[in-house]
């Protein structure tokens, strides 16, 4: 089992979700994170003082899935999540030792 973590543009979430769902990924977790990177946030002005919010709001996606699905899921994100402009984000893959479904005591791959 592998965990796929992707930091994506918040605006791309919908599309990416559709794509991976198409691959049969029924579960995923996501949340708002703040990113520091190449891209810089749109500057704001308040009472004459211009300032640049330190970070960019992004969405982090977490999908734990089986070997076979890693490749296709990553491709979904790479193709759908891409605009070609700085700020598209990254994908990271990790090893997962074990998984449990809380509802019943299924474990391992069928818990996914």
């Amino acid at each position: 089992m592998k965990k796929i973590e992707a930091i994506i543009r918040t605006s791309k979430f919908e599309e990416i979700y559709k794509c991976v769902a198409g691959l049969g990924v029924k579960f995923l977790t996501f949340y708002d994170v703040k990113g520091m990177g190449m891209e810089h946030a749109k500057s704001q002005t308040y009472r004459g003082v211009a300032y640049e919010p330190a970070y960019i709001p992004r969405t982090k996606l977490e999908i734990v899935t089986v070997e076979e699905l890693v490749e296709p899921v990553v491709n979904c994100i790479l193709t759908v999540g891409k605009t070609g402009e700085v700020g598209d984000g990254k994908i990271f893959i990790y090893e997962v030792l074990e998984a449990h479904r809380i509802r019943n005591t299924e474990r391992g791959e069928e818990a996914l």
Partner: protein
Amino acid sequence: MNQEMFTINNLWMMVATILVFIMHLGFASLEAGLTRAKNTVNILFKNTIIPAIGLLTYGFIGFNLMYPGDAFSGGFLGLTGLGLTLPEGWDTFAYNEGYTFYTDFIFQAMFAATAATIVSGAVAERIKLGPFIFFSILYVGICYPIVGMWKWGGGFLDTLDVPFYDFAGSTIVHSVGGWGALVGAYLLGPRLGKYTAKGMSAIPGHNIPMATIGVFLLWFGWFGFNGGSVLSADPGTVSLVFVTTAIAGAAGAFGALITSYLKFKTYDITMVLNGILAGLVGITAGADQMGIGEAAIIGFIGGTLVVFAVVFFDRIKIDDPVGAISVHLVGGIWGTLAVGLFGNLAGYQQVISQLTGIGAVGVFCFLFSWIIFFSMKRTMGIRVEEKEELEGLDINEHSMRAYPDFATKE
């Protein structure tokens, strides 16, 4: 004069009183909206307690200090007693054709607290609660009525050959608050992180809708503030004052809109809100002396000035979170001067008198505030500790949050 007319006049004065009252909610909302969420309970607490202080101190001593009676006409200071003593025929037009004694008191009392409210905005997000309340009591209870006596109490500014003119208080009320705000903001120093090595940083107000509500309520109340200053329901004068007040506010909005857009290339609502107030403060001194065109000019210039003023005070590192100094001090001075430049009273002599008034009030209020703030600074201290300021005054001075159910940044 007859009982009917007396009753009408008194009725309008009472309605005006209620309108001035609601201005305190306007100030509370505006100041809370233009500061940070972590200091909201604190700013609201101050603005809630201030009107209470104003009403009580004014009843205890303020009213007497401000209207010591003819014995002191042309003077600087007078006091003939404490508390309120009902004069003969207090509830008849023998007392005054426009209002009863109690109406007189309560209308004036509602004004009193304004001075301190203005200060609270400028010193927000870093002043200790205790010292601020202490200052407010002295400023509202003593400084404001003394200055008010100079003009409205028949004092020396009223007895100049060409009397100083300040219809509803551009100087007597707004500048008084503005000077206290200037001194307080200066002696406190800027909020942490406002002026850093790499230059000025913005500290955005946390709730623009609240700020907007505040300004509308202030404009709403201003019709009572200026309209009530006619001291009767005289149809001609009050309706004229309504028109000049409305037009000046509107013109102030445009003055600030255009100026801030030209300067910053953005539509900054906080500047437009300040512009409306500056227009209103500007017309306050001559609301009954201007025509609609002059009101528009005064308001427009007021709205323009406030934008430059905000930038200016930032440049000289005087940190005023809500722009109180720019609106009330700069706007108040402008409006007072304008009486000598436009309208029925325009004239060289009048300009001199206006400058005299501006100067006298400025010197007195500046010193008064300085002495109080400075001595407190040297003794109990007036500024919260760095850690408290960073965490926010709400959690430290009130051990409470304004929005506990919301995920707030920082």
